[in-house]
């Protein structure tokens, strides 16, 4: 069952579209915002509320990069691996994170603090290399600046 707050948030967007299906991406983002990720149960809950089949909702949930169909840590690090960041030090940053946190791409630290994911160009190319942590952007990264930035998330 969706919570009252989830229903209220989804309902606020429903009227923006000519067809109920169009609210599915927003509904998935809202539920992920409350629950951290999209479980099978969450898919079924959204489908029931919008009168769609679970498969119709899951087709969307499994397509978009930033909808998480598996649990993630308390903070998600999105490390940009596109061309400008590649040219300016992406490899060194990824290796630094691997040794520092003990995780590779797609993995979560054993204490559940961080999940590391690849992301396509963040549009911070003039500040490359760059990453996002949760909703914050960090540019002009070096391994040291990365450590300083990550220290703020517990």
């Amino acid at each position, binding site marked *: 069952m969706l919570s009252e707050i989830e229903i209220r948030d989804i309902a606020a967007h429903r009227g923006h579209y000519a067809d109920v299906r169009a609210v599915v991406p927003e509904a998935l983002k809202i539920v992920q915002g409350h629950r951290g990720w999209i479980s099978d149960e969450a898919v079924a809950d959204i489908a029931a509320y919008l009168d769609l089949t679970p498969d119709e909702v899951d087709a969307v949930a499994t397509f978009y990069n930033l909808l998480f169909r598996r649990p993630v840590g308390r903070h998600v690090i999105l490390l940009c691996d596109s061309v400008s960041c590649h*040219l300016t030090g992406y490899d060194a940053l990824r290796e630094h994170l691997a040794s520092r946190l003990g995780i590779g791409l797609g993995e979560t630290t054993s204490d559940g603090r961080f999940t590391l994911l*690849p992301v396509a*160009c963040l*549009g911070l190319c*003039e500040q*490359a290399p760059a990453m996002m942590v949760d909703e914050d952007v960090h540019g002009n990264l070096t391994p040291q600046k990365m450590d300083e930035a990550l220290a703020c998330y517990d």
Partner: protein
Amino acid sequence: MTEPLREKPLTRNIRPGAEPLDLRAYEASGGYQGLRRALKMTPEEIQQEVMKSNLRGRGGAGFPTGKKWTFVPMGEGARRPKYLVVNADEMEPGTMKDRFLMEGDPHQVVEGAIIAAYAVQADVAYIFLRWAYKLSTRRLARAIAEAREAGYLGKNVLGSGWALEMHLHTSAGRYMCGDETGLLDALQGRRATPRSKPPYPQVVGLWGKPTVVNNVETVACVPHIAARGAEWFRSLSHTGDGGTKIFGASGRLRRPGLWELPMGTTLREIIEEHAGGMADGLRLRGLLPGGASTEFLTAEHLDTRMDFSEVQKVGSRMGTGTVVVLDDRNCPVGMLLTLERFFARESCGWCTPCREGLPWVVRTLEALESGCGEPRDLEVLDMHARLLGPGATFCALAPGAAEPLVGALRHFRADFERHVAEKRCPWRQPCP
């Protein structure tokens, strides 16, 4: 060639690091005068004015904006509702210009979208924004709310009798959403797969209704054309393409950044003057003129003027106009591998050459980079460069992926051959 006016309409209100202008300050700077002027004209007159301005779509394809609008069915017989969608799903690697405009002057984007919607008599406008642009989300949401409050949106826009509603749609991340028809499917709450064209979205678009999709920078130009006219807009440019352009440069440069310059500014001026040239001790090996889906150029092309026609003459495309520079300490094969990994990962899997070909290209490049390359691999890459090209797929992702592949094979062939001959990447330490 006549000397362009040195005005910077798009960035006149942008102060990087500072809060953008709110509605009142934007109005005080002349904001919404373009809309007021547009509403005194007929939609067809606005279409003609934008056509005369030679504004070409800034998303990368360069299709004339006014002409795109003329394909929309007009008049009483047109099917409704009609839609205007601003493509703010900027995700082309190496491209950060739309973020700069949305964060820096959100009302300019909103005003441009309203005028574009008026020009095609749209009933509803969406700004389709990528998930990662959090600051843009907040600032655009506020600008839309302020515009609604002030009567620039709603049931009777500035008393004109025309109604427009505007919604901000934030996506959940996928490069395919930037494709015009993939975007429409994404907006309808489906997987973003491309549609067959024709019919074109202007006739059969969102929910089957007439729809125009315009890029952020394109709509940002529109208020200025409406306020000051087509002739003025054309005189901002060095060349036949109208207006200024937000150019950018990234890579190992002294001052990577973004600048509003006359359309037709040379690559040399962008890289050497504005970006300050290469970082210490580095030499320019090559460049992508406008994002990941444009062909490599080299130092011999630096005097090329950056506009949609001129860059095509030297075998590439201006694309998004944000240059990515390759230096001599980075391996060209490694750079190409990064580009192709992106395309392979972002492919939606709808068309065979893209779904099957791109992973094949990636595996071949990985083999070259790890010292397992064979002479035959270059033929394999040449083959895919052909198979991924225009006409074999529904959307432009695969042809886009083919462009840097073709360019790298042309300009850096000797580097590929060295990888094969030496059985290693020459830019890395040999294996112990």
